């Protein structure tokens, strides 16, 4: 236990990496402020890999590390679409995943946001559109925001989340549901 506590103390709080922040940290810190201002409370996301190469997942996972610390903003990746305010979807939508994606979308309560991440999901990726894949996520379900990048960096993903919740009309989603 002593070692654990010492390590925690030694590590300190990294969410806004002092003293000389890398450019990513500055952007991340600003995004944090914006997200907190607009959202103000929890946002739950169900993640669906619809046939990505796994590059996009690695960067979405990184959102949870202490630098980006999305949990600290009240953004959580949840284990059921029924608990989700938003879907985050990667991949070109392989045909084998199309039905599962559609079902996940149907299972998420309205109103809901969809954030498509990565070039493949946006329809410009190397895997988009062939006998085994559809063109993009929006070929299967309505998409609110597309985040480019192969894969998009965690900072770009944060910007995508921000863009989704800041869209006119979208803002009402989490707030509305927070009313008891």
């Amino acid at each position: 236990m002593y070692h654990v506590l010492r390590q925690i103390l030694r590590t300190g709080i990294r969410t806004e990496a002092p003293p000389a922040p890398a450019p990513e940290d500055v952007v991340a810190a600003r995004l944090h402020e914006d997200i907190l201002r607009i959202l103000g409370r929890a946002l739950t996301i169900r993640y669906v890999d619809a046939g990505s190469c796994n590059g996009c997942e690695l960067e979405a996972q990184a959102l949870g590390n202490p630098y980006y610390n999305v949990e600290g903003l009240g953004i959580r990746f949840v284990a059921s679409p029924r608990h989700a305010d938003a879907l985050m979807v990667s991949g070109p939508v392989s045909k084998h995943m199309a039905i599962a994606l559609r079902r996940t979308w149907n299972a998420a309560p309205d109103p809901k946001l969809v954030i498509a991440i990565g070039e493949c999901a946006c329809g410009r990726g190397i895997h988009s559109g062939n006998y085994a894949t559809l063109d993009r996520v929006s070929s299967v379900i309505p998409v609110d925001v597309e985040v480019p990048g192969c894969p998009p960096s965690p900072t770009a993903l944060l910007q995508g989340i921000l863009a989704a919740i800041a869209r006119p009309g979208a803002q009402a989603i989490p707030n509305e549901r927070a009313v008891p």
Partner: protein
Amino acid sequence: MNVAPLGLAAARLPAGVPAQRAQVSSGQFLTACRLAWEQRAQLVALWASDERDRRRGFCVRVALEDRDGLMVLEHWLPGEDSRYPDLTPIFPAANRMQRSTYDLMGIGAEADDQRPWLWMASWPIDRFPLRRDFEASPLWEPGQEEYDFVRVEGDGVHEIPVGPVHAGIIEPGHFRFQIVGEKVLRLEERLGYTHKGVEKRFEAMTLGEGAKLAGRISGDSTVAYAWAYAQAVESIAEIVVPPRAAWLRALCLERERLANHLGDLGALGNDGGFAFGLAQFSLLREDLLRANHAAFGHRLLMDAVVPGGVARDLEIVQALAMREHANRLRAEIAELRGIYDEHAGLQDRFRNCGAVGAELAGRLGMQGLAARASGIGRDLRCDFPCAPYDALGVNIATAANGDVAARVAVRFDEALESLRLIEAITAQLLDPALARDVALPLPDAPEQRLGIGYVEGWRGPVLVALETGPGATIRRCHPHDPSWSNWPAIEHAVIGNIVPDFPLINKSFNLSYSGHDL
């Protein structure tokens, strides 16, 4: 492997490791595989090509690895109705490879298990995408097929289906558990959900363009795939990349290995109920990815390795920073390893959980990291070191128990070894005597040549079998992930364990879905 006793003539095969090829008849096919098995060879890959345009029917190829290197057996089939011998009695891992070969090429083995594997009703069952005359129709709707799972009958047995969409941020696949109480009697995997037509896409590309796709077969192994692909191209073109390019490739490959091990060690701590581990290791991983971005322009190092060399050189300041960073990281990892080792709760979850013994691992033909954790000491970096590994002398990491704890221990050892290698490599790169060129122009590769790339990625050996077409194009490309051989092992590893331990066991293997589904 010496096939002369079988009366077979072996020819040299251009590859990144010592490799040969031999044509076999139907009868010789099985005999050669049995002989290989007796000589402790392992099945690496099985794939087929459509050669009807050359009036030669179809060709099924099997790549085997033993002490001498790779042996590719080639078996020609006159037409689409002919079958080839079932290899699963000798190499159980052949099962899914044979089924996938049928789904994509329409060439079947004489096997009992004829269930589809990569086919899921998204295209007509009598159309085969990898045939050269295949044409996709926009009218084909995504489908879903009723897969014939094996059921366990008996008192109190029930079934839990999981997936394809999983909790958390991971790839999709379906798992069917048969359980009694909390105990797993049987697990059956159903993969293929991320099938995206990679092999077909290669066929529309030039050799240069293919590198980009190779780097996007499995995002966590982009360097390994890109290098294996480049190796295949370079073997065919008979070029040797500049020494500096080789050092830079190894630097990227070790950084990829390190980044994945750091990510997994954190996730394994978390799945074992120790969130502290995830927070700590994910910080270390993020630092590494940011340094990658600063040095090579990409956090995951995509497109860093290209046929002929590497895309860019490392600046001196970056090399210095990496060396210094490696030094710090070593202390951090050692500290965290001490914490993991002393944490009773974590060790209780790790030990004896999801065990695969050496005997079973050998019989299943397991590969790479998971095999090393089960006492099978194979690592291409040690067994058939290509440049610059021949000059580095990699220390292999193994463990005996084959449980989660063993797979954790191998990751710690390999992470520390990668740090040592990174320091050794940066020292070479900083040496002013090392020539500065990092890439050769790609010469016109001769057409209709087969070449093999074979590289030890972080998960295990990645193979790329490439055949050239006219004018520096790709005629056929089959990339093969070690996950093919290791997925079946998870079905064995979970037997007798409790359901809540499955995520931990699965993570301790951390196999690729995308690299397997293609």
